[in-house]
């Protein structure tokens, strides 16, 4: 072979090798876009002297740990949501949210010394500003009063009463607002999401600035709850609503073994996997497992013996916030898409109520991809008060008359923060 030919062959070989050397990870990154994991390749993460479990193994390798209060509140919300489907609603939902006398609930899971009210927008609540909690209390009263007054009436534009979607009857206001959706999904944001992203995952709680640190000596109930950082992290996980041992369970097509936030994150994971190569539910769960493992692996007997890989922890936390927020955004998109496609007014106002609630819920993240102002703008596009971003701003919307163009505007605003979501077929 002569020299030029050899050189040419060598050149071709080099080109071929460099093409074949393009890693799948790089391809996946390009596809993932803004959903790219901060943790990178999960399978390549190794912790010193600790094997990361395949589930949130809170009773095994990650023990001790517990999040009983969170489970209790989710059980309480489930009872509240379930009861709001039985008309007329005779239960005092406002009292149930406050769990007055700590004996409002029937199920054993919901009973106990916890309530939902004091955890609504808690950081502000504890500082004396209970306005968000008060808004939900008022909403609960509105639902109960309207239900008792109008449960025999067929709803129409200007008349509160019942609509029928599929086989279900739902109660709406004169403006077509399905109170129960706002109550339930609004609380996803004001309680669970807010507690997760703006409270428990903070540096002063699960993060590096927790003054009790990540050691078993600083707390006197380590045997039940783990270190202080671990417990705060578990509480954030508790609000996600995933079943620790099995989520996401692809075999459970209804919920994936997740409640509320985890349920909706699961619901749209197939779509995000198809569009971005990222299964939201699995990615969120991976981040929870890695974050908790980092804390377990790095715990000390005393404060001077801790060795937390803070870079990994921060990356895991970033993923949790990213994927949970994306789940909410996907849900909002889904319901807007449905409302636009709906033929019947009943279906439309039901789906629109859900969408409004999910977008309002997304406003409870001070560091989200979607800012609170952007969430409000999306809501304003559909008639929410431009001067009142609180829940009270919803009551001026006439859902019967919200147009497809308005909902499309909202979709476009959301898409700015979640590029490509409007085309992801949620």
């Amino acid at each position, binding site marked *: 072979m002569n020299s030029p030919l050899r050189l040419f062959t060598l050149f071709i070989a080099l080109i071929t090798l460099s093409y074949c050397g393009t890693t799948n990870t790089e391809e996946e990154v390009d596809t993932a876009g803004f959903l790219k994991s901060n943790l990178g390749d999960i399978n390549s993460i190794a912790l010193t002297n600790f094997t990361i479990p395949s589930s949130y193994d809170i009773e095994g390798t990650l023990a001790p740990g*517990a999040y*009983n*209060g*969170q489970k209790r509140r989710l059980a309480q919300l489930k009872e509240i949501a379930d009861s709001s489907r039985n008309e007329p609603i005779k239960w005092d939902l406002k009292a149930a949210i406050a769990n007055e006398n700590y004996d409002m609930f029937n199920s054993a899971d919901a009973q106990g010394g*916890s309530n939902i009210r004091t955890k609504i927008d808690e950081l502000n609540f504890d500082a004396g500003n209970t306005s968000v909690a008060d808004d939900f209390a008022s909403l609960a009263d509105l639902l109960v009063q309207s239900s008792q007054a109008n449960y025999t009436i067929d709803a129409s534009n200007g008349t509160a009463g019942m609509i029928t979607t599929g086989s279900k009857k739902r109660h709406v206001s004169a403006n077509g607002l399905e109170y129960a959706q706002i109550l339930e999904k609004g609380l996803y944001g004001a309680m669970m999401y807010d507690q997760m992203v703006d409270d428990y995952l903070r540096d002063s709680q699960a993060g590096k600035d927790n*003054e*009790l*640190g990540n*050691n078993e*000596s*600083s*707390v*006197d*109930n*380590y*045997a*039940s*709850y*783990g270190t*202080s950082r671990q*417990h705060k992290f578990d*509480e954030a996980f508790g609000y996600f609503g995933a079943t620790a041992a099995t989520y996401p369970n692809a075999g459970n097509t209804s919920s994936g073994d997740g409640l509320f936030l985890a349920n909706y994150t699961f619901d749209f994971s197939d779509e995000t996997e198809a569009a971005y190569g990222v299964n939201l539910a699995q990615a969120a769960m991976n981040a929870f497992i890695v974050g908790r493992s980092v804390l377990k692996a790095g715990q000390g*007997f*005393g*404060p*001077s*013996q801790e060795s937390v890989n803070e870079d990994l922890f921060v990356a895991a936390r970033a993923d949790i916030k990213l994927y949970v927020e994306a789940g909410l955004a996907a849900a909002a998109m889904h319901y807007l898409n449905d409302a636009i496609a709906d033929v019947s007014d009943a279906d439309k106002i039901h789906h629109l109520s859900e969408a409004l609630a999910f977008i309002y819920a997304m406003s409870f993240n001070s560091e989200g991809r979607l800012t609170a102002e952007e969430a409000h703008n999306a809501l304003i596009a559909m008639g929410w008060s431009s001067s009142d971003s609180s829940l009270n701003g919803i009551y001026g919307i006439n859902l019967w008359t919200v147009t497809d163009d308005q909902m499309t505007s909202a979709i476009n605003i959301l898409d700015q923060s979640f590029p490509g979501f409007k085309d992801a077929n949620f």
Partner: protein
Amino acid sequence: MQISKMIFVIFKRFQALLLSLLLACFIISCDGGEGALDPNGQDDHTELLTNQVNNVIIPSISNYKDATETLYLSANNFCSSINDSNLNSFRDAYHNTYKSYQSAALHNYYANINYDLVNTTNLFPIDTLLLKNIIISTTYNFSSESQKRANGFPAIDYLIYSSQNTVGLFTSDEKKCSYLLKLTESIKNKAVQLDNMWGGSLKENFISNDGVEIGSSIHVQLNSALSYYEDHIRENKVGLPIGRIGPLDSPIEADPTKIEAYYQSLYDGNDLFALSLVKESIQEMEGLYLGGNTLRNSSINSGYDRLLISRGHTEVDSDIKSQFDLIYAKIDERTSISGNTDLYDSIQGLITIMKSDLFPLLNIQDADGKNDGD
């Protein structure tokens, strides 16, 4: 060399030697020893912590374990031959074990709190109806929440002192012995478990966990012991029976039935045994403070007293020791826990000194960490 010159040279050498000696003394006195402050702010308390483990904590846990083994054997002897002699032997073993428990229980941290020693061994008063039903059922779970008010030493107190005819009651009802044997076995097993824990890696972890910040062994020990002292000595042993909770709380209704060994106090007609239990617990608190040097041998000074003394706070050390003496005096001058508040006040006095003086002087934050469990 002229004599004057020789003298001058000798004097100069003497001066140099004297200076060297003075310099050496200065260096040695400035050397960071136990209790002296390190200019970098990192004190080394290894010796103190080692002493605490070897001469205070482990001996108390070990003695308690030994006593529970004797208690269990004595229960077996009694139940295999129910008579007055064996009952008296069992009562003696019970007294000895209950006293040993007071020392072990003060160390309500690490293994002791993780295994819930206090709540599974000494919750009083008991629920006598619950106890009767449990005995009838022959179903026992000495770790369960549902049986916590029919457990431990208070349950034994009821079984062996609530009647003038204890032998007769045990003879006529074999279920009482079934329960007693299982209870004393449970008490023993827990003590063995704790003894094993403190003899294992916990000991080394405790010693190496230096410093005084939150989570350090010193912080944990002092805060947890003082918390136990407030809740289980001041309040439970003395306060509630005389109608006092915290020193700033309004008085509540006195309840003389809420003392340790209540049924024995009825049997004996006095609270002397209950008072002896109070004394044991106070003595353990003193032992902790003194690092086990309960004879107060000033040449030893191996406890927290040494830290105070080495930093020039002898008056605080003296106040603490005087307060312990006062508490003992107040215990000795009464035969009933009920009555005036002298004993309560003297017990509270130690808390005041520790929180106001000891903790700040040792730079220990008055705080116990707790996960909110929420």
